[in-house]
């Protein structure tokens, strides 16, 4: 297992370098001149190529060097643990990412916990009551929330909960997961992906319930809850965990809208700023961190499989 984990981590390095190269090249050749973007809204007269101020600043920031030299310099700094300095505000990207990552990770973990605790039981309940009213209600709600994008759901919930029925204040920023401020953002973050998990859990339970060994367990006269919890649920969890991995990855990498709507200073918002300002260092730093988080999530999912499925564990032992 250790060898497997090490190999996965080693494989991450060339992937990251390749991705950084692609992104750097896209920004360098196609994203626009960062200095022009920096001044395009307010000082268009001064920051035209050829202007002395423009040329002086470009030289000072090292942006007049060839592509490979700039990229090589960036990689060299990264190897030494330095993610560079933001072109926009001159701050350390390492510090900016270090401040943003825990917030995004907290939201992703919290949403995943909520989805696990609510989504899987709802999926199981729906399967056990297939085609009954409760199944229809759960599935309809899941489809409803799956169909509403975050940028619609978030303002709607705020209008409802903060303005029409003022139960909570309008959430703004991030003050921690166990605060009033987190209730609406975490609800919005959980509802859409929860729909996927409910449907996945339901369909997996239905598949398992038709298996021979479930029939055997029932024939042995085991109580229904023992049959479900002990025999049906474990194999169900394998595809559900796969789904949860995807959900977690999406929450880590795709919380941009959520962070903008609620003013949460996470990785998504930082990355958006990097893109808009063509701020190479910020965008590359965010990319690297997101890639690391997604790789880690996939790794955790891979490690979880053999724990849940003895067949996989045996296969792994056989391989080794």
């Amino acid at each position, binding site marked *: 297992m250790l060898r497997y984990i090490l190999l996965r981590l080693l494989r991450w390095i060339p992937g990251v370098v390749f991705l950084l190269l692609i992104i750097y090249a896209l920004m360098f050749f196609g994203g*626009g001149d960062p200095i022009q973007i920096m*001044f395009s*809204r*307010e*000082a*268009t*007269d*001064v920051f*035209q190529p050829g202007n*002395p*101020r423009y040329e*002086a*600043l470009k*030289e*000072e920031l090292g942006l007049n060097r060839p592509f490979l030299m700039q990229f090589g310099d960036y990689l060299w700094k990264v190897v030494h643990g330095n993610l560079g300095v*933001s072109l*926009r*505000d*001159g*701050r350390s990207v390492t*510090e*900016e990412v270090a*401040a*943003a990552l*825990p*917030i995004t990770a*907290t939201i992703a*973990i*919290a949403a*995943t*916990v909520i989805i*696990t605790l609510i989504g899987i039981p709802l999926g199981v309940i729906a399967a056990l009551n297939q085609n009954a009213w409760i199944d229809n209600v759960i599935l309809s709600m899941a489809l409803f929330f799956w169909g509403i994008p975050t940028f619609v759901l978030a*303002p709607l919930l*705020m*209008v409802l909960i*903060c*303005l029409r029925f*003022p139960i909570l*204040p*309008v959430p*703004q*920023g991030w003050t*921690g*997961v*166990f*605060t009033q401020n*987190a209730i609406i953002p975490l609800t919005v973050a959980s509802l859409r992906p929860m729909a996927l998990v409910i449907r996945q859990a339901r369909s997996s339970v239905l598949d398992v319930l038709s298996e021979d060994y479930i029939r055997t367990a029932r024939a042995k006269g085991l109580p229904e809850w023992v049959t479900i*919890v*002990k025999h049906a*649920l*474990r194999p169900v969890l394998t595809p559900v965990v796969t789904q949860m991995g995807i959900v977690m990855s999406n929450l880590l990498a795709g919380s941009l809208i959520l962070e*903008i*709507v*609620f*003013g949460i*200073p996470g990785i998504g*918002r*930082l990355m958006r700023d990097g893109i808009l300002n063509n701020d190479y260092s910020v965008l590359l730093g965010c990319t690297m961190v997101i890639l690391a988080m997604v790789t880690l999530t996939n790794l955790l999912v891979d490690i979880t499989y053999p*724990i*849940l499925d003895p067949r996989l564990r045996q296969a792994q032992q056989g391989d080794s």
Partner: protein
Amino acid sequence: MNHFRSIFAVLIIATLMLTACGTPATPAPGATEIPDQSGITPDATVPTLAEEKILTIISPTVNSDLSPLRGGGTAVRFQSLWWAPTIQGDRAGNFFPAVFASWSSSPDFKVWTFVIDPTAVFSDGSPITAEDVKGTWELITQPLTKHQRVSLFLSGIVGYEDAVAGNTTTLPGIVVIDEKTLEVTLKTPDPVFFKRIATNLIGPVKISQARGADGQEIAGWWDAKNNPAVSGPYMPVAMDLNAGSSEYIPNPNWWWGSEPKLDRIKIIAVEDGATALLMVQNGQADVNFSNDLPTTFDEVGVDYVGTNQNPDFVIQVFWINPLIAPMDDINCRKALIMAANPVDMFAASHPHGPGAAGTTLLTPILGDKETNQPLTNNPEGALAAFALCSYKDAMPKIFIGGTSNAQAEIAAQILVEEWRQVLGIQETELVPAMDSLSVADQAKVQFFRDDAGARFSDAATMLLNSVHSGSGAAQSKMGHYKNPQVDTLIEAALILAPTDPNRDLKALEAEKTVMEDYVYFPWVAEGPMMHQMPWVLNWLKNYDWQVIDPWNVDIDLSLRP
């Protein structure tokens, strides 16, 4: 069953981790929480919590750089809260002493002498000196400081070109006479130089704190954690640059104006317009700096939008690039300008104001004086000109750039509809962001919406900032537009005394010459958007969108929900 116990354990661990993240014992990196430095004991001055006057301001962007030396971006809109201007201008066009208590010029308007108020001090009690002003102005000319508007204020000073090119870190045109007196030498006469520098955007900073030995700005010197000495009525006590929030309390050494009336000012970043609107509706925020939605007026009313204010000296126009077909034919430009009516565009884009429909560049400044007649809204003239347009049978697609906000988009839609109705032009495209076009199509954008304006009521300066060949609009949106006659007239007007009637006459003549080139379409003479709830008192903005006399801003707690 053991595996379920494992999963349960993982969930418990995750919950514990979240608990740890929930209430951080220390601020996140980059966040600073500085103890109250007012030197005033809380018991003596801070009223009980219920009575505390805390003004919460929404910034539409995350401001991670709050240096007062940038001269641009959203952060400068609240710069007057913590930095004093060199000279104060009001909305009526009057100028008052601020850091500079008095000023005078040589008879030829080339040498200006400024005397600093003897009582002017920073928040740490140290005096504001002529060295601070000279150092600040030298610092903002450095390329690395990235000041957005330094050319508007200081480009006339001897040595400016060398400094902005990064060849030197000093400005020989600025000489310190004594601790409180500064002499500025200009390359050419400028009778309104004192008006030109009347802004918070170049107010002095404590130079020993802001500038390093290399002559460049010290990174983050302005951060609350570094206890910056400020010159405004409020001083920063906490900043979270990652979240874009900051907090300010009254400056105990405030030297100019009356005692600040607020106990604390909080600035928070809310990028989403709907969230921001909900926060002001809920009373969670008192002021918003922009972020208007189509429903804002209906939701929060006339006072918030600011329709009760007089128009600014700023006009929104659609600049025309005369190098790109079909605009390279003057008859086509003429037809397009005459075919549309700014009144219709204004009515659609600003149904509740503020401001007025665009007429000419100088009308907002010269007001009731005799100005040039607008060229727009003349369908017959448009048809006659269109008949002479060499592209009338094969009109290229017309791209309209700069439609990046809802109002500009609506105005542009009316514009293209009137072109369609009057001239039969069908193929047009609105371009909210240039990035959305291919590089080839970016070079085809013939119309571009942008503003033009002046910080004070001066026609020659207005034209200098808009249609002179050195202006930003001429160099970019208008494809390096240069009419030597226009430049000569503007330059001749600029050196005349403000009291000389020829100054305005020459400006009018220059404007007439530009109008005959048919290179811009006026849309709206802007009015100030106030964006404050009714319980916020004395909230007035200058032409930089900064708060005038911020020490007077108050909250009527009886009106606040």
